[in-house]
Structure formats: C-alpha cells, structure tokens
C-alpha cells in the first residue's frame, strides 16, 4: 500500500461517510418492502449497511488466508 493510502482522510472519504449516514438513517424513515422469505433478517433496521460492511471485512480476511495458501513467487510456472 502506498503512503498516500495511509494518509489522513481526504474530502472524498468524508463525503462517503456522510452518504453512509444519510442512507442508514433513511432506514428509520422509509418503509421498506420486504421479501417474505427473508423478511425476519432483511427487516432489521440497518441490515444492508451492516451486511455490506461485514461482507467486505470477511472477504478481505479470508483473502489474506487464501494468499498465504496459494501465493508463489512471480514466474512460478516459467521454469
């Protein structure tokens, strides 16, 4: 990762946070149409925000495990 990626949050990151807050808050105002098969889970306020956030966390953590298992030096197939 580059140095810049670790630098202080830029303006676009704050816009992202604001957009997240607004859409999450909308859950408490908008009456969502629920699918009967999954309504008990889907109906929980904040389900999609939490699921989206956690999905990426799980994805990234498992990918780190995958890298440990399958990563080889570049040119592995060349010799």
């Amino acid at each position, binding site marked *: 990762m580059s140095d810049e990626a670790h630098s202080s949050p830029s303006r676009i990151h704050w816009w992202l946070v604001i957009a997240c807050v607004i859409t999450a808050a909308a859950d408490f105002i908008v009456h969502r149409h629920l699918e009967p098969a999954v309504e008990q889970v889907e109906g929980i306020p904040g389900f999609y925000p939490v699921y989206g956030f956690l999905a*990426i966390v799980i994805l990234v953590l498992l990918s780190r495990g995958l890298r440990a298992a399958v990563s080889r030096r570049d040119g592995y197939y060349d010799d």
Partner: protein
Amino acid sequence: MIEGLYPLLPFVVGAILCSILSGIPRKIIALATPVVGLLGLLGLPDGASFTISFFGFDLILAQVDRLSFLFALLFHIAALIGVIYALHVKNRLEIGSALLYAGSAIGTVLAGDLVTLFVGWELLALTSAFIVWSRNDDHSLATGSRYFIFQVLSGLSLLIGILIHHQAGGSLTIAELGVLDLSSPGVPWILLAFGIKAGFPLLHTWIIDTYPAASATGTVFLSAFTTKTAVYALARFFPGTEELILIGAAMTIFPIFYAVIENDLRKVLSYSMINQIGFMVVGIGIGTELAINGAISHAFNDVLFKGLLFMSMGAVLHVTGTTRGTDLGGLWKKMPITTVLCLVGAASISAVPLFSGFVSKSMVMAAAVQEGHSWLWFLLLFASAGVLEHAGIKIPYFAFFAHDSKLEAKEPPVNMLLAMTIGAALCIFIGCRPDLLYNLLPYTVDYLPYTTTHVLTQLQLLLFASLSVVVLMKSGIYPPELVRENLDFDVFYRKGGRLLGWIVHNPIARGAGALSHTVLDKAPAKILSLVQKIPAHTPVQWQMILPGLLLLLALLAFLCANLFSG
C-alpha cells in the same frame, strides 16, 4: 435490413478481405462487416431459415426466436465495438480471426440444429485460439495452446453427447428439443461441453490463464463471445436444471477472493467474469421466467460493461505496457477520459442505480428469494459486495488513483476512446431506460428495478461496502498488491505433468537403478563370497543350509508382502 442474407456470410467475406487488404480499405471493410451482418440479422424471418441438406442431415443454419435474436444482436454490437477498438491494429491475423470468431458466435446462437451448433462450437474454438496466438510471443503461444486444448475438449464432449443423444433416438432439431433432461443419454456430456466454455468451477482455469495473456485488443474480443455463447446454450437447453444453482453459486463466490489478492488487473477482470457468469448460471438454474430474464439481460449487460472494463485496461496496457497493480497508479491526470469511462464500467458492474448492472442482476436475486432460496440470496448479496470491491473499486483505484506511479502515459488512440464511449453510453442508457432491453427478453417482464426499497438497499449495501474497503485500506489490513503468482486449479495440470516427469526421473529411475544394482550386482557376489568364506573343515551341511535359509527368508518376505498388501 437485408433479406436473404445469412449473417455469418459477411463475417467470412470480411475476414478474408481484411487478411488481404491494408490501410484505409481494410478499416472500412472491418467496420462494414458487423453492420452488414446486423442488417442480415434484422432481415431474417422468425423460425427456421437457410435450411440445407448436408450428407443426409437437414441443417438449419438460422432459427430465430427471442432468445437467439437477442444474443445475435448482442454479438453484432460487441463485434462493432471491438472492431472500432481494434481499428489501429496492424496485425492481420488478429483482425481476421476476430471477425471470424464473432461470426462463429453468431452462427452458433442462430443454429437451428445440433450439428450446426457443433460446427459453430468448433469454429469458435479455432478462431479464438488464433486471436491468442496472433500476439506471437512464447507466453501467448503456450497459453493459446492450453486454451485450445480446453476448447477442443469442450467440442469433443459436445460431439460425444450429440452422438449418444442421437443414437438413443433424440431429435437433432433444436426447436423440437426443448429442455434437455440430465438423466437422458448423452445429455451430461452436452452439459459438460457447455460447462467448460462457461467456466464452471474447476473447468474455469482457461479463462484466467488466457484472457490476461492476449493482446489489449484480442482480450476485448475473447471476453465477449465464448462464455456468453455457453450461457446462451445453457439458457436454451438447461433452464430450471437445479444442479446449476449450486454450480452458479460457487462461481459467484470463489473468484471474489482471488480477485482481492490478484495483482494483474486483467486477471482480476477474468475472475470477475467467472463471478458474473455465476449470477447468470444461478438464474438459469432457478429457471422461472423472472430468473431467465435476469440471466439473459445480465449476459447482455455483462458483455457491455465487462467489455468496457477490459477496454479501459487494454488502453492502460496500450500506453504503459503493463496492467500490474504494483506498477500502475495515478494515471487519472494523464488519462482523464479513460478514467471516467472505466468508472462508468465499474459502476455498471457494481450495480449502482442508473447503471446497467442494477437493472439485470437484481432480477436474478429477486427470483432467488421469491423461490424461497434464502441461503442463496444471502450468498449472492455477499458476492455483490465482492463485485464492488474488486471491479468497482480495486480496478479503477489501482490503475488510475492510489500512489502516482510516475509512468509515461497519455490518452489512447481516438478509436479506442470512441469504442469505450459507445460501451459506456450503452451502460448508462440501459441503466436509465431498462424497458428497451426488457422488451427484447424471452419472457414478458413484470419487474420494476427502480423502487424506493431497491434503490435504498442497494445504495446502503454499496456505500457501506465501500466504507469497509476504505477502513481496511487505511488500517493496513487490506492485502497490498504483490508481484506474485496465485495458484489456482490449473497448477494440477501445469505442474502435474512436470511432477510426473520428476517422479519418473528421480525416485523411480534412481530407486530402480539402486535396486537393480543391489539385487543383480551386489547380492550374488556377496552371497558367493559368504559361501566361499565358510571354512573348508565346517560340516558340509552348513554349505547347504545357508542358501536354503536365504531362500526361506525370501519366501517369508514374499508372503508377508502379499499378505499386507492384500
């Protein structure tokens, strides 16, 4: 429209002319080919046409219904975009093969009987292999050969399947066939053939092996036709086949992990392609009208936005010579137009509202949940977040933003920009006016993508997934780009052959050498010397007992070996 013109014909003629001509005339012919083909397609009547008799078979070269027309239309659009994108290319083999390849795909989806389908299937294999080989370096020659083996195996499997099916009295006419039943003779072979070309799990390795190895322009053609022809075939013959739900679900999940750790951005897109086909295969497996419509419309959109993403990475490759995430970054200042067009592709594949993926992928997901597959719905939602991570954020971020790589770069040639602009315009157009695509689908569409709930929940999912990526990157948990080779299932055949060679050469050859040396050379001499060493005055019986004992030991060893191995 032109009546009485078989759409494959312009592609054959165009390919021959493009292999002879050069300069402006070749460009004109290349551009005219898909346009004339499209006019021919629009002139085709519904139902069977161009029936010819061939060695006792009645071949139906064109069978137009809503499904085949949609795919043929899509392939003409993809061919036109591809030709514009590759207009600057001077490689005659590549452009000629590409036109024949596009024509083969069109011929395959229009095929009205299984024999014609098989011929198209084989032509697809051969012509596309030449696109890979036309790059003409050691790497692409080897990769192209591996690719060709896979495609030939697919063709062989299809041939075996059709022969067994026909032997058992099955019809060869597609209109009479309807849905194939997996338990009837020959049909599993046919499914295997389609599965190889569609990139089913474990059969998928040729996609990630080949697509990053072809030229910048070659990959744009490759990514459009082969896998989508397979999706067409699955939708035609196997709708509602439940096994496909599980296969498709696996296809949506496993590539997203590889996409996180893969450094070559065109390889990331190749994994992404398997993931997207997974959504289509799931839809076909569910098999309801909504699911099939979702799968087909997603195939249509995928050709456009995946093509756009491959084109933008091709543009990066064209001007910088690399698509490695470790080498790239900060290109947006030098390539602002390419950056914006890439972002349109990224938004489309991530299913952002107003972009094309939003109006098609959700149909598959809605069908899954309506049919009560709740576990599947959760899995597809997870995969959707994964798509955003690798195709929506990783691709544009590592190429155009992140740290400034200080690479020499400028905008690609104007024809490349034009092709990308057409692709991007279609992605936004379909995203904003989905009814136009919906009207072409096999079944009447009773689905509204733009509801408050759908827009809100999708935005929540995407925004919070993005936030998660940002947090993980800032905290250093996100795995950094590394110049590494990530092993996939192909290690078994790419290294397996060598491993077999090593085993034969080292343990077996050496072991056998040592064994024969011990048994044949040393042992008799040793025994002989032992026997000779026995003093002459020992009772004569010993000289007879010793060999007898040795023989007994050998017998015992032989018995033990047999007992335990048995």
